[in-house]
């Protein structure tokens, strides 16, 4: 699959996953990479940027195994953004699908 496609949707996937529940980095990476084949390492810089933009905050939790885990949580702004992007995406994806299906019917 085209790498630009994946990059484009990565932000919305991350926001969407965080809208369901707070996640720590590994969990988030794991969840997304199960569905989309993406370089897992690129999710961390994205999380950093989202934090910079005030869309997510972090909190630490001690874990039984190893160092404390850094959890990411959506802020109010993040929640609004998630809704916006989700709506935009659904609309966009539907238009593209309609367009592509229209074309393939045309070919037939």
């Amino acid at each position, binding site marked *: 699959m085209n790498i630009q496609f994946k990059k*484009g949707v990565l932000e919305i996937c991350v926001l969407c996953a965080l809208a369901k529940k707070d996640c720590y*980095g590994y969990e988030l990476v794991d969840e997304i990479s199960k569905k989309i084949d993406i*370089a897992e*390492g690129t999710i961390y810089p994205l999380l950093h940027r989202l934090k910079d933009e005030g869309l997510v905050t972090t909190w630490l939790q001690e874990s039984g195994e190893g160092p404390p885990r850094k959890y990411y949580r959506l802020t109010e702004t993040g929640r609004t953004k998630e809704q916006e992007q989700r709506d935009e995406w659904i609309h966009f994806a539907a238009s593209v699908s309609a367009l592509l299906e229209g074309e393939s019917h045309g070919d037939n």
Partner: protein
Amino acid sequence: MVTTEHEYLDTLRDRLTGYVTSEDLEEVLEEYAGHFAIGKSRGRTEEELCKALGSPEDVAKEIRAAYLIHKAEQTKSAGTIWQATRATTRLHGLNFVAVIVPFILFAVVFSLVFIAGLALICGGAVLLLLALVKLLGIALTLPWHISPEPGVLVSLGIFIAGIIVVALDMWLAHFFGRLAIRHLKKKLPAKKDAGFFSPQQAAPQTIAIGRDGAAALDLQVRVSAGELTLGGGTGDQVLMSMTTGNGNCPGPLGYSSSMDGTTKRVWIRNRHLSWWSAHDWPADESAYTWDVRVSREVPVALDVKNHAGRTFLALGELNLSSLLIKNGVGETQIDLAGYRGGNFDATIKNGVGDLVLRMPEDCNLRLEIHSGIGGTNVRGFVVNGNVYTTSTIRPDAPRITCLIKQGVGSITVEAV
């Protein structure tokens, strides 16, 4: 190929040192070390984890871009904003000059106001001190005469005014700095989407305006970025035509034409005109081309503006009634060799970039040049201060009066 956690983190450290602060670097390495730790505790090998993360070089690139913006936001010094601007423009293939000219302008203006404010503060303080000394009745022996004015209140006023100016200047600089950063940040996701929502290669687009019995043409062309060529020669009964070239058109092309008496007024503009929000500019502006052809049959009042990019105007075959050229950034060449048309006045304002003019030596020409930074090189004219005239004038030669105002860049004028 990196296969161990140790190698992976080392490569990241290597690629990030000097680009992010040492605290940020530790934070990044901790995050990735944590990723390895959890991954391994779930039975994945280091090799698998390295492979899934993706090449550390690519990951480092992403981190660098994300942290540079972050750095600018935290400190907001001119230096870091500059750095972030450079990194972002490079990352997105923006026109660096177009981004940085306003940047320098702001920096200069704010610095000047700041210095003026400081001068007010210092001057006010000195005057206040002198006024207080005078008030206490202490006789001063100074090398210059001081009148009792200004009094304490006036000195205090100057002092406070200085503080206000400095504070306001700093607040405004801060405000614009934030604005610039917000703008840069918008670019980051914009570029990520670029491959995703990128516009398709647009087919060349042609606009042609018919003559419709017009006796004159009033043409206005506004282009955001690209290589603009304008010359004579259209099909029969066509007043003017414009073809956009290969590549994506930077923003939609709008045009209108109307008749005003016997004059046809046409304007063409490419709507993506904002300097600062030019996020879909190409790395190389010459990727866009605009080719305008104008009829030789009627007198033309020409008004051209190209915000960024090279401009070539071959006007020798046209019949001009007036000429107005305002270019932003880029080289401009105007060729009037062999001009046989009517009299006209020309104004050429060039922002940044070299200007080359080829003027007909047998015309009645008066050229006034106001140059900014950059040399002026004029050949084949009679010089009188900054006014240049042609030496030999044919009796029936058209009269051309030309005013040139140049910002930065050389001016070359040649009589041909």
